[in-house]
């Protein structure tokens, strides 16, 4: 059994020798396969997969394949790629020369009792006042998170928003960024962080283009 881990162009640069990878040429593409992972999908196994794909990504464009794609042998890998040859080629062109950056925006604190109390100056107020004050804080915070996205998206080739995870996560976006533009993108996020003390900006990457492999 083999794991299909990435689709690249054929011919491409030689595969890194240390990783026991196998290249299966299929109609102008290469299906990169690895010996089937014996372990269940532990955190270590996931990081190993990521390291392998990042090593490949260093000197070639690729489409990472959904984790868990296990096939009988080379012939089965070739059949699987052939079935989607046209879409895979188009997707590879779409991500060519770019990497994925992940941004999560998290509220630095919960707009709960303390801050809502501060806004009233300690006056006695009704439950409705409290709810209004809290809603106002939440709205301001959410608007702040949303305004971060626009300037970043102009530096990216494409972006995909995912549902943020409540209660504190406000924004979760993947950006497809041209390799030469990564530095400028990172600098813009750093500036946005400095001017947004109420928010935490978690930027990770460069990732293989996981979020842009399928339309």
């Amino acid at each position, binding site marked *: 059994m083999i794991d299909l881990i990435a689709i690249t162009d054929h011919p491409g640069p030689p595969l890194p020798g240390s990783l026991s990878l196998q290249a299966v040429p299929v109609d102008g593409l290469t299906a990169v396969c690895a010996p089937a992972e014996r372990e269940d999908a532990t955190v270590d196994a996931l990081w190993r997969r990521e390291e392998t794909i990042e090593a490949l990504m260093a000197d070639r464009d690729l489409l990472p394949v959904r984790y868990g794609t296990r096939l009988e042998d080379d012939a089965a890998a070739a*059949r699987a790629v052939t079935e989607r040859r046209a879409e895979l080629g188009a997707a590879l062109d779409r991500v060519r020369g770019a990497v994925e950056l992940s941004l999560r925006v998290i509220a630095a604190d919960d707009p709960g009792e303390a801050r809502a109390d501060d806004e009233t100056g300690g006056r006695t107020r009704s439950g409705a006042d409290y709810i209004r004050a809290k809603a106002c804080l939440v709205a301001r915070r959410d608007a702040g998170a949303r305004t971060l996205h626009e300037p970043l998206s102009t530096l990216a080739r494409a972006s995909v928003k*995912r549902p943020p995870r409540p209660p504190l996560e406000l924004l979760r976006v993947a950006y497809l960024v041209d390799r030469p533009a990564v530095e400028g993108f990172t600098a813009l996020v750093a500036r946005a962080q400095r001017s947004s003390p109420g928010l935490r900006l978690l930027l990770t990457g460069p990732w293989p283009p996981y979020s842009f492999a399928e339309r």
Partner: protein
Amino acid sequence: MTTIQEREVALVDLIDRLLGGGVVVAGDITLAAADVDLVYVHLRALITSVATAQEKGLLPHMGSAV
């Protein structure tokens, strides 16, 4: 992504991408979607504990893990 701490921060992103992203080729996929879902739930529980520690200030703040 080299240090332990960077990996903890990036683990959420890694799992979202490896298990929810990437190109899907048909064929004889033997690791069934249900298995992946179980793995996902298990790993998400782990992440939640890391994220909680971070939000409570038990892990130092990271503005950027790039």
